[in-house]
């Protein structure tokens, strides 16, 4: 068996594992045959372990052979040759994707093992794992994507599974409201991503990253775009990354996402998903070298995110939110590193931070127990002295900072006041105008929907 064949088989194995898990966990509930917890665990365990082993073996092979760039070509998914339109299914194993894939399998496997106990006998156990399988597939596809369209495919899967898992405890309204907020921010960011993909198509004639960053493997590629082109595509990608990684000004959804169960919070907002935006910026980092304004924009966004998040993390009253903002602080620093061109440092920072934060978030439910243990050991309450800034800043500034941080930078409030409410008012006015018009045309009351009761459950008993 030739080396290339072996590379191809391993590459396919890495991709097939999460795809198979989606089919196995997703189809039985659809036909009314949900799987037992034990079976679900077995399949989730098998998919992550086989995928991890295949990716580790791929890494070992690449080191042995001495290659740092292994493309897996699956041909064109869609092609219109006359128009030079193609959707190329291409995956790349390189120095950026391999560590991220290994990290994804490792952390997803860990979280799966934790979840099997944490959500034992929960009503939505199967639902969690269906979303989990979509998330795993989305992460692997995004990490290995060789074209921007494939990356968009995985990106969307990650977004949907995240929103549905935030709303996991769906019998209460709060998680659902927060899930919708997360989805809304994601969709606006995804719109920017789609525009970037189309712009890339128009500028380079294809969505392949190879075309974008030249033929050199990551991180040695050189972008083939002009500065202006790189700036326009790069800014769109920065918006997309800001949505996924909760960078300023799209950070408001992050604490809301903590409504989901702890395992999903750990894997999404502590470890993998929150770094996906940074990963995207790393993937297209050759663009930053072509356009200095773009690099400056990336640094500014990262810096602002980091400063705001560190402030907010200090005033949170629940451990998951505190960890979420602590996580965001680090993501901001990672983005600054990317903007400054320290790509390897950023990658290592992602790997280390993701592992640490997963551990912290998984330990979060036992925080009180841990405190009891510590306090029993020291024989009293732990005392907190005011820190460096607390002793030097004037009281008024401290108060302002506290308000600013506890209101989470007023980001959500501004979004509501300046975007959501005017939007609602505008369309409610249009709705009222339409009502007047149809009332006039029909010569009376034209809307039966106005009389629909909010809850009409009694009808069920009468109808069926």
């Amino acid at each position, binding site marked *: 068996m030739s080396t290339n064949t072996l590379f191809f088989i391993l590459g396919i194995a890495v991709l097939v594992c999460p795809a198979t898990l989606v089919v196995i966990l997703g189809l039985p509930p659809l036909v009314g045959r949900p799987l037992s917890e034990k079976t679900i665990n077995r399949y989730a365990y098998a998919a992550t372990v086989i995928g991890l082993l295949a990716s580790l073996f791929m890494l070992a092979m690449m080191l042995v052979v001495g290659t740092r760039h292994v493309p897996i070509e699956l041909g064109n998914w869609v092609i*219109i040759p006359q128009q030079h339109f193609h959707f190329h299914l291409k995956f790349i194993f390189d120095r950026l994707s391999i560590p991220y894939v290994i990290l994804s399998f490792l952390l997803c496997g860990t979280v799966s093992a934790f979840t099997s106990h944490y959500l034992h006998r929960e009503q939505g156990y199967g639902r969690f794992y269906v979303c989990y399988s979509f998330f795993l597939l989305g992460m692997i596809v995004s990490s290995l994507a060789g074209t921007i369209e494939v990356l968009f495919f995985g990106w969307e899967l990650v977004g949907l599974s995240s929103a549905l898992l935030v709303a996991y405890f769906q019998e209460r309204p709060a998680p659902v409201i927060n899930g919708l907020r997360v989805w809304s921010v994601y969709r606006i960011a995804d719109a920017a991503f789609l525009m970037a993909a189309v712009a890339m198509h128009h500028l380079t004639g294809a969505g392949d990253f190879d075309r974008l960053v030249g033929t050199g493997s990551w991180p040695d590629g050189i972008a083939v775009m002009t500065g202006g082109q790189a700036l326009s595509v790069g800014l769109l990608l920065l918006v997309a990354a800001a949505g996924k990684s909760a960078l300023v000004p799209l950070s408001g959804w992050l604490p809301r996402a903590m409504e989901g169960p702890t395992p999903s919070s750990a894997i999404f907002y502590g470890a993998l998903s929150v770094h996906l935006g940074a990963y995207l910026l790393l993937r297209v980092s050759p663009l930053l070298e072509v356009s200095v304004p773009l690099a400056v924009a990336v640094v500014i966004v990262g810096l602002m995110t980091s400063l705001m998040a560190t402030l907010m993390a200090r005033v949170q009253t629940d451990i998951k939110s505190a960890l979420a903002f602590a996580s965001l602080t680090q993501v901001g620093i990672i983005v600054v590193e990317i903007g400054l061109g320290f790509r390897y440092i950023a990658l290592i920072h992602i790997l280390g931070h993701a592992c640490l934060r997963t551990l912290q978030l998984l330990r979060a439910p036992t925080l009180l127990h841990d405190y009891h243990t510590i306090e029993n050991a020291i024989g009293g309450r732990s005392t907190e002295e005011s820190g460096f800034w607390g002793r030097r800043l004037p009281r008024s500034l401290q108060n302002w900072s506290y308000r600013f941080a506890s209101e989470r930078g007023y980001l959500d409030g501004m979004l509501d006041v300046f975007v959501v409410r005017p939007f609602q008012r505008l369309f409610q006015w249009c709705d009222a105008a339409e009502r007047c018009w149809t009332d006039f045309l029909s010569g009376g009351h034209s809307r039966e929907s106005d009389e629909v009761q909010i809850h009409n459950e009694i009808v069920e008993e009468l109808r069926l």
Partner: protein
Amino acid sequence: MFELHLPWLELAIVTPLVGAALVFRVHDPELAWRRAIVFTFTALCFTVGEWQDFNSLHTFEAHDHWDIFTPLVGPDALVVDELSAPLIPLAALLFFLVTLTTMKTKNRRFPFAWNLVSLSLLLALLSCRQPWGIIALLTAQAVPPWVEIRSRGRSTRVFTLHMLLCTGLLIAGWMLLSTEAGTLKNVAIIMLALAVLIRSGVAPLHCWMTDLFENASLGTAILFVAPMSGAYAAVRLVLPVAPDWALQSIALLSLATAVYAAGMALIQQEARRFFCYLFLSHASLVLVGLEVATPIGLTGGLCVWLSVGMSLAGLGLTLRALEARSGRLSLADYHGLYEHMPGLAVFFLLTGLASIGFPGTVGFIGAELLVEGAVAVNPFVGVLVVFAAALNSIAVLQAYFKLFTGTQHTTSISLKARWREQFAMLILSALILGGGLVPQPGVASRYHAATEIIARLETRESHPGLAVQSPNKHVVAVSKTSR
């Protein structure tokens, strides 16, 4: 012109008419329902036969074997081509599924006979390329819903006014089009474009659609709008004769409607109206694709036409199933129905995501092509298309959360999907996911249809006198549109 091996089109059109005649005489709702299922299914089989037969001929257009209409009415009266070949079975499938999934408690109120008439008219419309035939069939199509609204004791004025205006503009426009005077010709084109805009529900001429959803049964409303006969009229009547300024005007108005309807879908407090605006937004996006008239944009528009027809009909069926259990559904509060009907909830989400072009579903490639085509025309148009799609996606998930989550729903009876509903969900899910995972055949077919339409436009520009005719320019188009 090539011939199909059997008179598939005639059989498909006549079968529901025969069925309607039989169902009209029946007073037992259960028997009427059973007969309607048999006849819609038979019509579906004929249309699938037509599609397969047409594909096996590898041609752009074909007419029936033993075609009796051509000698009587003239050429193009009953023709299947690349554009209509998949639309005909899709239309028949929607009618079959709506009939099949009608709950027994609704049998008494649902007009099966009139729906069979509607099916026959729709299939005839989709098989017709003759302008006067299209105008007559578009007009006749509005009769069954009108009868239903009237029989329910609701006001028909909004619906009647819009449909009469549409018909009047079509007739006057097409009559004026044959005049030589340039000004009158432009007036004729404006009239035709306005008629198509009314029929497609482009704002501010869309109120008939919300009124239809308010006053007709949900099944009838879905079946009237989902096949998008307005878009069909645009392709057959307007596209071959309209100059660029008219196409651009239609595209701009459609684009504005797509964004407006998406915004309206977000703030609706009732499920039917939400569905109506969601559909309106998607139908307008289809029109945008059709009117940008570039190969990629047109291919995208035609792909989205099919995907939206399938996915939003599925979404409508889910809402209809919910309404059959709980009555009209308010979106002002949460209902928490997931626990009682997980299958319907997942299907709602699947169809909703397919309609917005979520990856892996049938709408994904179409949406991408549409955006690509729009950006090629003008980046701002592309931005608005993407913005409308983003608003629609938020509206879909919001409706899902409102209907299926957010509270604990208590009921003493089973609300789960019945086997007929499960069957319909299975069929549509297979089409949505199958078309999403293997998109190439569908895209290739729509591209061929798009190139033929563009070829007609080019023929019109080079030979204005031939504009209304339908030359087979497929090969020319493919070579001309190639770079």
